[in-house]
């Protein structure tokens, strides 16, 4: 057999493999390109224009205004309010929800626990419910006069709280509801992480006379660190996108105490049609999420190094 034939058939084969690969990739990558990358880039460009309701009929009415939208944002008290609220939600509500997930995971993983699968399913149920429906239901649970929550609290001698009508309580109310809805998800991931901790570690600690708290502090928490970082990053990215809860429950009120970045973006973009300004808000959100992810990834790397 001559080399020429095999090398040309090899080349033919490589070509055929590539063609097949592109054939398989195209249906998925073309939509991602058109409906994700192009709009993401366009949003960046949009954020440097004064695109508004007049430009909607004719794109040529939009002009480049440089960084004006971003400067305007920096001076917009509403934007800073939305930033503060969103950070409040991310930095307080997020960790609370994760703590609930961890606590429940420990409970489910306890040797003393029975009917684990049954309880796991119940704790997980809120995760699969529709957020809009949940927000509608909780609005009534939070009703200052007829709501179940205030009724339950009255047994502990706590006076009625106007959960969604009081600027101090509205955001904590949204945090509580989100924690209820979401804790089951991270609970599952924590249970998986807990099951990966070798039992011998606990047995050795037990021999040395370590109590339950010491075991938790010196074995469970350090061994769970990678899981916790993973869970925190995913939760943080999701929490920065807070929208549905305030949209359905409070419309951002009272006195803008639950106005989130995405809600502000939605109002500016689709209620007032200031699309250039709205795109700038979207990019600030993106920047914040990117920065947050990088910081947490960096912290994790440092922890691994030490």
């Amino acid at each position: 057999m001559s080399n020429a034939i095999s090398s040309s058939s090899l080349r033919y084969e490589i070509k055929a493999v590539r063609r097949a690969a592109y054939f398989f990739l195209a249906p998925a990558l073309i939509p991602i390109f058109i409906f994700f990358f192009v709009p993401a880039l366009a949003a960046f460009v949009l954020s440097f224009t004064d695109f508004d309701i007049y430009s909607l009929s004719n794109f040529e009415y939009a002009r480049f205004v440089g960084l004006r939208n971003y400067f305007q944002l920096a001076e917009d008290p509403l934007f800073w309010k939305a930033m503060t609220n969103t950070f409040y939600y991310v930095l307080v509500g997020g960790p609370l929800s994760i703590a609930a997930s961890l606590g429940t995971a420990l409970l489910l993983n306890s040797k003393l626990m029975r009917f684990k699968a049954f309880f796991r399913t119940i704790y997980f149920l809120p995760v699969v419910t529709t957020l809009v429906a949940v927000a509608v239901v909780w609005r009534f649970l939070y009703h200052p006069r007829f709501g179940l929550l205030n009724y339950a609290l009255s047994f502990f001698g706590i006076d009625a709280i106007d959960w969604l009508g009081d600027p101090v309580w509205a955001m904590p109310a949204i945090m509580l509801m989100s924690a209820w809805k979401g804790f089951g998800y991270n609970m599952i991931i924590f249970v998986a992480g807990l099951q990966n901790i070798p039992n011998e570690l606990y047995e050795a600690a037990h021999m040395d006379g370590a109590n339950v708290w010491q075991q938790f502090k010196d074995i469970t928490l350090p061994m769970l660190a990678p899981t916790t970082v993973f869970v925190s990053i995913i939760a943080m990215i999701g929490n920065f996108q807070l929208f549905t809860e305030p949209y359905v429950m409070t419309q951002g009120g009272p006195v803008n105490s639950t106005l989130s970045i995405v809600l502000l973006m939605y109002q500016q973009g689709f209620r007032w049609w200031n699309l250039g300004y709205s795109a700038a808000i979207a990019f600030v959100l993106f920047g914040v999420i990117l920065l947050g992810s990088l910081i947490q990834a960096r912290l994790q790397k440092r922890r691994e190094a030490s």
Partner: protein
Amino acid sequence: MKSISKILVIGLATILAATTLLPALWMLSASFMVPGEASTFPPKLLPSTITFEHYVRLFTRLNLWRYLVNSLIISICVTVVSLFFNSMAGYAFAKYRFPGRDRLFRFLVSEMVIPAQVTTLPLFLMLNKVGLINTYAGVIVAGMSTIYGIFLMRQFALSIPDSFIEAARMDGSSDFRIYWSVILPLCKPILITLAIFTFMGTWNDFLWPLIILTDDSMYTLPVALANLTGEHVQDTELMMAGSVITILPVMIVFIALQKYYISGIMSAGLKE
């Protein structure tokens, strides 16, 4: 001592379970109450007489059928199309050699950090230009394929031995035939997991359908429900019935297939 802590642990778990279920059970209970009964003091946990009038009203006068059908069409289309596209791409990334493959894959994964909200404004303008506002297609195109789906499919397809593919090739099967009758059946567990994720994600999605579906008759259930709350704030019992209908389909899917759903989350959490 041991039995006391055991009672304590199970007692705690039971209290927590009751708290978790309470909002959902109250929703169900209130949906059967006569108008006004949910707004009394002290709050009632159970209806004095069971009435179905809110469900009847939702399905007859308030057009709930329409929203249910809209939600079903959109969720099923997105699930089927994205499962097909994502699995093909995931398979290609796992089993085909082509120039720039790993770089392209790494690039795609790194782009997952871009929040979807960033794309909504230009996407709205683009779809407005081509007349897809207020259509099923407008909702569906944004979910036809996802980086996350491709990622999950690739991770799973990597574990399929090359020998399976080579054996099929020896038999003279075409590339598509191999994908269809060798790879897809082997990927069944991840396909089911991804199908549940996608169906539920699309069903529960709010922001994008809210933006793109401008006409009442095109609303999905969550959008219609949010809209109803604005008009019927006082009709607590009616809103609870609407919430039950919105949640019920995803609940059924979850309870039937929870094994796949939960194992999917566990593997996603451990791989990174």
